[in-house]
């Protein structure tokens, strides 16, 4: 398999259910060999898009390809693409192992493969129990195990962390990171950025069925710019000095003796204070608040022109 095999290209995809425009001219690209977060609020059209990508829902318009071909045209698709679309899609009376063996048989994998993937997702002990007795977290693991049966180079996961406890989420992150480190492309959807923030390299953010942003996660952070917090006994003078060197007044928030400034590096604030001989009690560069950027991007009235532009990956 070449790297090209893993590229996901979604182009002009559209789907209307009754009167609901679930997906509305969606275009984006996912490069192979990376973890891409597919983000959007509830009802944004994530699941519908993934189902169209995987040939389960027929688009009204547009195309979606994996490695240049529609999913339905891939020979032995389970060898190339593993997908988790819902965590509860099991026959309750079958055991986890029986479920995996059924799909191993259908795909022509050896019978031992079921036990291997059970081990991989930490379900070995529960493999011989009926799925009806599984917790939601166990079902998520079994769904992931099903996707991994064919050792695919591309993974498409719809909200795989749904219903997992913090420990389960940490486990899922580790596993996905390991899988990506083996050279797989992972497309993982979520409606909360923080859930995948430490995991993904790239993001595709959609809202109301349209792409509002795609690109590296770091670029998303840059949209907001760096944030610096500083405490000083003389906040008035520091504020005036900041404005003098060109910082916009509304980028400065003042709380008591503390100033919070966006769009400036901590070094510059320190240098300025020193030059102006303003005492600094405390100075910190804040982690960029991505959740706020995400919120701004996906809230309709909070949209700013600069944030809605779609950039190439």
């Amino acid at each position, binding site marked *: 398999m070449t790297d090209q095999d893993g590229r996901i290209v979604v182009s002009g995809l559209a789907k209307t259910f009754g009167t609901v425009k679930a997906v509305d001219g969606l275009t984006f690209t996912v490069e192979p060999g990376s973890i891409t977060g597919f983000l959007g609020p509830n009802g944004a059209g994530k699941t*519908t898009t993934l189902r169209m990508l995987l040939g389960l829902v027929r688009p009204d318009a547009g195309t979606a390809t994996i490695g240049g071909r529609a999913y339905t045209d891939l020979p032995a698709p389970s060898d190339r693409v593993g997908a988790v679309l819902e965590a*509860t899609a099991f026959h309750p*009376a079958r055991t986890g192992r029986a479920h995996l063996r059924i799909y191993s*048989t259908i795909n022509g994998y050896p019978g031992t493969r079921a036990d291997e993937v059970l081990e991989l997702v930490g379900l070995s002990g529960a493999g011989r129990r009926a799925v009806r007795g599984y917790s939601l977290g166990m079902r998520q693991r079994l769904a992931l195990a099903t996707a991994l049966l064919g050792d695919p180079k591309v993974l498409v996961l719809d909200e795989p962390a749904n219903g997992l406890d913090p420990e389960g989420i940490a486990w899922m992150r580790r596993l996905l990171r390991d899988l990506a480190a083996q050279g797989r492309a992972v497309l993982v959807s979520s409606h909360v950025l923080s859930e995948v923030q430490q995991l993904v390299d790239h993001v595709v953010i959609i809202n109301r069925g349209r792409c509002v942003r795609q690109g590296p996660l770091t670029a998303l952070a840059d949209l907001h710019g760096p944030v610096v917090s500083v405490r000083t006994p003389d906040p008035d003078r520091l504020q005036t000095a900041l404005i003098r060197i060109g910082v916009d007044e509304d980028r400065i928030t003042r709380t008591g003796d503390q100033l919070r400034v966006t769009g400036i590096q901590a070094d510059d604030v320190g240098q300025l204070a020193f030059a102006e001989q303003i005492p600094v009690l405390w100075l910190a560069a804040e982690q960029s608040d991505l959740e706020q950027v995400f919120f701004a991007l996906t809230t309709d009235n909070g949209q700013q022109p600069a944030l809605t532009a779609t950039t190439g990956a």
Partner: protein
Amino acid sequence: MRRLIAGEFHKLLATRLWLWLLLGSMAITALYTSLQIAFSDDPDTWTLPLSTADGQQTLFAAAASAASPLVAVLAAIGITAEYRHRTATTTFLATPHRGRVIAAKLITYGLVGIGYALACIAVVTAIAVPWLSAKNVDLSLAGNGLPATMAGGIAAVTLYALIGVGLGALLREQVATVVGLLIYLFVIEAILTNIPALDAWTRYLPGPADNALTGITLTNQQFLQPWQGGLVLTTYCVLIAAAGTYLANRRDVT
């Protein structure tokens, strides 16, 4: 296709439903057979005497009469379970060409139908051979058109299995499909076939066509020729399976 069929057998055997319905079919076969032999001398019975070829054929048709509805139910449950438990997503991810999935199910449940029919024919034989010999009635399994009856019975059960698959693909709702199937076979058809004015039409319904194919002769009802019954049943089967496949291909799996 071989792998898909093996997978379908895996699915079927992963739970015990097939066994219960098989035992049910065999029990009902035993009941029908015993009743017919026990009441064969009753002047009010609608069957012909067991010394006649028609009477013996009707006796052996009990196998198909018992197994057909239950095989259709098993097949319908088998396919609608994919939608009910949402495994259709996983199934169609593994095999994006949904027509192949339905073809595999048709073949699988067709084979299951043959198995059910054979088991039920064995039940009739096991009951009829000793009992009729005790009643001094001549019975040769190779004579009196019985081989044709048995072949017709196997074909009928198989066609019912295929109809069950097609109906499930068409309707997708498990409870609606199974309840609808049973109500049709045991209530609607029973009522319609009991209206003498409709006799010329009702013989083309699946149940009477099934009876014709399996060689049943009753004194109160007219059936088509066996080959005509087979043709009618095959037509239903092809139409329903084709409609089911067409819709399964077109409908969104959400």
